[in-house]
């Protein structure tokens, strides 16, 4: 009895130290859905927050510079595994943790086949680069009338740049005229949109970018698109939920949930180098019917047969167009 009591006491005393510590770095608030997916996935695998797992979360709130400082702070806390919200966070963590390698799992990053991956790194490839052409195809299928599409790309973001050749080829095959426009800041975006007003594109297509998934940028694009009647195809499902016409990709929460399995393997002691990068389990084409209506688009039910999810009645809690810019 004494031995059992002693064992229970030791277990109780030591349990906080036996908890796994998972450091999570997010570049912006949009990626919180990934974190929620991660937590849900790990909970399904038996990791209950506060009981046997502790999350150390750093959110850079959309500040590019702050991503690196947050990465530094996170690595200093010595977690068992680092989880990156995306490619940008994974890069920052990898640079910071060079001296003391900690396994890194990214919850959705684009273009990870080009040798960018380090041995201590694994995760989910969100397929953003490969899906760029598919987005263009779906845009055409939704709106067969479009002929001239403007592609917004952040020149600082490698996957965005890497998707351009396939986009150009797809545009050629689909008989579209494509214009590539670079934007690397909100100010530049504003100027670009005002310039585009004159060009009157049939639609806009976003590429994988830290800037273009930010709430402020999406809101700006959404407002402008509504006022000018431009349909916009976003990268992340969240873009459509935020008010763009459509988006095609893997939902953030799914990316987080899929990454949870990889985090679990690392917590069980597997070498991250031996864990292959996975592609998304599920892809989703989302169309925001509210946005379509506000744009005056008449989508025939036959044209929506292949859509996975239709947002109606501001279901996504997206932008209210015309809201003053903060």
């Amino acid at each position, binding site marked *: 009895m004494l031995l059992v009591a002693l064992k229970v006491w030791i277990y109780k005393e030591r349990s906080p130290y036996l908890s796994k510590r998972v450091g999570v770095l997010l570049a912006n608030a949009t990626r919180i859905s990934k974190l929620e997916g991660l937590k849900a996935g790990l909970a399904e695998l038996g990791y209950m927050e506060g009981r046997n797992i502790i999350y150390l979360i750093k959110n850079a709130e959309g500040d590019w510079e702050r991503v690196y400082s947050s990465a530094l702070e996170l690595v200093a806390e010595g977690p068992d595994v680092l989880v990156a919200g995306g490619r940008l966070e994974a890069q920052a963590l990898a640079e910071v943790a060079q001296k003391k390698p900690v396994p890194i799992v990214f919850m959705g990053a684009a273009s990870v086949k080009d040798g960018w991956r380090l041995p201590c790194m694994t995760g989910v490839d969100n397929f953003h680069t490969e899906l760029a052409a*598919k987005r263009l*195809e779906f845009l055409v299928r939704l709106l067969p009338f479009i002929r001239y599409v403007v592609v917004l790309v952040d020149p600082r973001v490698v996957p965005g740049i890497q998707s351009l050749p396939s986009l150009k080829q797809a545009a050629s095959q689909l008989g579209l005229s494509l214009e590539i426009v670079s934007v690397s800041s909100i100010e530049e975006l504003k100027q670009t949109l005002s310039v585009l007003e004159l060009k009157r594109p049939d639609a806009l297509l976003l590429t994988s970018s830290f800037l273009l998934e930010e709430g402020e940028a999406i809101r700006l694009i959404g407002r402008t698109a509504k006022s000018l009647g431009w349909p916009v195809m976003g990268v992340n499902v969240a873009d459509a939920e935020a008010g763009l016409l459509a988006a095609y990709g893997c939902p953030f929460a799914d990316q987080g949930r899929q990454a949870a399995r990889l985090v679990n393997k690392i917590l069980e002691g597997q070498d991250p180098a*031996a864990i292959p990068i996975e*592609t998304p389990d*599920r892809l989703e084409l989302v169309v925001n019917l509210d946005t379509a209506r506000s744009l005056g688009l008449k989508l025939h039910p036959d044209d929506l*047969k292949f859509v996975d999810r239709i947002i109606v009645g501001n279901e996504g809690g997206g932008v209210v167009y015309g809201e003053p810019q903060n």
Partner: protein
Amino acid sequence: MEGLFTGSPRIKRWKQLRFRLVVAGVFISILPLLLLGAYHLNLVGRWQEKAIGEQNRVAAEAVANDIHNLTVQQEGFLQAFSLRYGKELLEMPSREAEGILYSLLRLSPYLEEVSVFDLKGKELARASRRHLVVPGEQRPLSDRELMEKVRRGERYYGPVEIEEDGRPLFSLAVPLWDLSREWPVGGLKAKVSLKGVMDTITMLHTRQQGGTIYLVDSRGRLIGHQDFSLVLRQLDVRNSPAVREFLQGKEPPTRYVSYDGQEVLGVVIPLRDLGWGIIIEYPVSWAMAPVRTAAWHLLALLAVVVALLLLLNSYLSWHFSKPIEELGRAALEVARGNFVEVNLMSGVGELASLQETFNYMSRELKEKARMEALVRQADKLAAVGRLAAGVAHEINNPLAIVSAYTEDFLDRLEEGGTSSFKEGEWKAYLTAVSRQVARCTSIIRKLLDFARPAPGVREWVKVDEVVQEIASLMDYTIKKKGIELALELEGGLRVYADRLQLEQVLLNLLTNAVEAIEKEGKICIKAAKKGQEIKISVIDTGRGIPPENLEKIFEPFFTTKPVGQGTGLGLSICYGIVQDLGGRMVVESSPGQGTTVKVYLPARQRGDMDEEAESSSCSG
């Protein structure tokens, strides 16, 4: 025996009865438990292995059914669209057909790509989740087997193909019918994601905790696994006996070492139509965990039982061995001449009986000892009688001298008065008389000393002194018979004995030797050290002892002398005394040749003697 003689507990602990009783008790109690436990564990282990094997088979069949159902479900979707649209799909505009195909993709998350084709092998429309589909684009199909089957109106399950990103997909095709003419006009082809299928299977069979489910195709390639990373790594599992046997169409062993080097209990179920095998493996370490737990419980139980048995057996062995030890101590006391009785305080029948027997023996021995003491005393008195003649002669001589002196003294006194004595003559007379009186006194004291019953006190006795003393006692008789007595005594020999008893022995032997010689002869008494013994030999040239009597001579009351001349106890008493002293007697004789009696007494070291003397004095 040594322990009994010394009375000290020199028996090693592990040789002690008590210890052996404890060990034997524990062993006898544990052995059946251990054997039964081991047998039971072995049986449980077999049952467990069998149960896990059966459970594996049931689970594998369930998984196989689920996979079959999922694939049939995908086929069903294609069949439904085939029936719904028929050859319309071939005839409608490609854009419209693509819309229908995309709606088919929406129906099933497992479908990655769907296309419609005609019997010429031309893909007319396509829908894909990941790859660009240019509306209206037509591509040729290169799968000849697929085309042949569809042309025959059969469904088609193609081989597993690994996508660029590592995901395994397999092709599935159903014919498109011209319903009016009932023949195939084209087909619907789909690529099915096995990852999605395996994810669903894993989710459905999460109860298979501890086990591993994986899927191999007809070439033994890993196409599905709970840990999808292994599929992405295209792990080679063909070294697993289960996969090897499956590929050869044989029944795999139930217990084997799997691809990861772990010993497992496994089962393989081939999947109908697909040519794949579903394998479920349980690590033996996991499967046998309950048996291991039971083994630990058994060991713990054994430990408790051993502890209890040790306590119980210790008590019981103490309870049973204590009377025996008491008996041992009492026996030792009896051996020392203290005829004690025991009270074992035991109600156990055998012990009570043993106690009764022991006490009876002790009483008998006590009585025997008393009788022996009386006999010895009687024998001494008899010896005194035999000595009387010699003693009388011994005393007669000095008395004759005293008489001669006193008569002469009186004659001279009567004849001449006191003046007839010269100066100093009176003193000479008186001195002569006094010397003879002293001689008489000495002889009588010796006789009294011998005849007097005295408690035996052992001491260092010089052998030569005793022999000479006895010889002097028998001097008259020896001379009277004209016997020549020779003494060959090694100097400095000592034995630790009761002096009087030793004298009694030697007197007896010498008396027997004298009596064995009719007239004239020779007696030789030798004393010498032989190894650890002192040998005293009394050798006579008498008539000897017939062989038939030789073996009886130590028996009490055995005598060849006429009635009234001997008690028959002499040699018997000698034998008892010598044995008491830790020695032995040997008699060699042949009729007409004489007799030699050898007495061997232990020649102990001085230190031993001191210890023994101390021990004797201490014991009282």
